[in-house]
């Protein structure tokens, strides 16, 4: 309990004015306009622009050149000398890695960024058309360690193609 707990409680009683109902619709339109695709429950992101970071590129090239130079110097050394270096280098002692099995899965979140209807297709060996819908998602897996309170989170993009049979009416 700090000096401000009572004031903080009073502040939390204030409720922010709600956003207008049109805001969600406006965002949906905004997302659809950007991509020029059909608006769906998902989001239609624009392809990322590739920007060249010249400083980073220059530093990367310099580092690669330095590595190549070092590698060449190493190759140029006599074989005997290299052997002695290898022989005198102590081998690292491999420590057994403790297996931490205290992490427990805490959840999987899938956020759909883009859903695109790719139209009708005829799968191989079938006379019935199907509608192909492609969804782009980001999945986030989370594990918690209840003992230490630490958490581990892995996030990666994924793509899913769904074939929906079309009713021939």
């Amino acid at each position, binding site marked *: 309990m700090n000096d401000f707990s009572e*004031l903080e409680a009073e*502040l939390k*009683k*204030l409720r922010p004015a709600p956003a207008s109902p049109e805001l969600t619709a406006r965002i949906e339109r905004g997302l659809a306009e950007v991509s020029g695709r059909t608006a769906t429950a*998902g989001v239609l*992101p624009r392809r990322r622009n590739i920007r060249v970071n010249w400083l980073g590129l220059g530093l990367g090239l310099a580092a690669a050149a330095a590595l190549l130079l070092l590698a060449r110097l190493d190759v140029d050394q006599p074989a005997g000398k290299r052997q002695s270096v290898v022989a005198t280098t102590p081998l690292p002692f491999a420590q057994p890695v403790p297996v931490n099995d205290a992490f427990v899965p805490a959840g999987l979140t899938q956020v759909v960024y883009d859903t695109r209807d790719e139209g009708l297709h005829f799968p191989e060996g079938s006379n019935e058309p199907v509608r192909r819908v492609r969804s782009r998602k980001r999945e986030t897996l989370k594990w918690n360690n209840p003992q230490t309170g630490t958490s581990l989170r892995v996030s990666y993009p994924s793509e899913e193609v769904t074939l929906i049979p079309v009713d021939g009416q």
Partner: protein
Amino acid sequence: MENVVTHEDWKVCFSELAPGLVLFARQFVRTSADAEDIVQDAFVRFWRKEHSIENRGLLYATVRSVALDLLRRDTRRARREANAALEVEQTTAPQFDFDDGSQRELAAAIDRLPVEQREVLVMKIWNELTFAEIGQALAISQNTAASRYRYALAALKKNFVVHE
């Protein structure tokens, strides 16, 4: 072993965040309409870049960036906002729903805080960001964020007596 699986789309994410985001945007402009314009622009930008929705520091940084861009872009508008800020109580739409006069006084006291304290207060109280996330959003250290929060509370406590 529990494995919780949830399927979310942007509408679900947005509906949870919208009131807090609009309130945060209101710290830079004086009308709800302007604040909603900022939130719309920022959310579309954020989502298009496929950032994780859990990266709240970045989301609020995007809202702040869009708001500041808007103010810089339109100097006439900025002047109007500055003039409006001087006459807060007469010209601005309320940022909160009030239950009583005491809450109205508290909201007015919040409005009188310096903007750098107010934005930290809004992110902490009504958006429940951590000081680390606030620091990320404002490009300041989390200690600075915590200090600004304490200064804001101290200023409010000085000017506002909690009613029983």
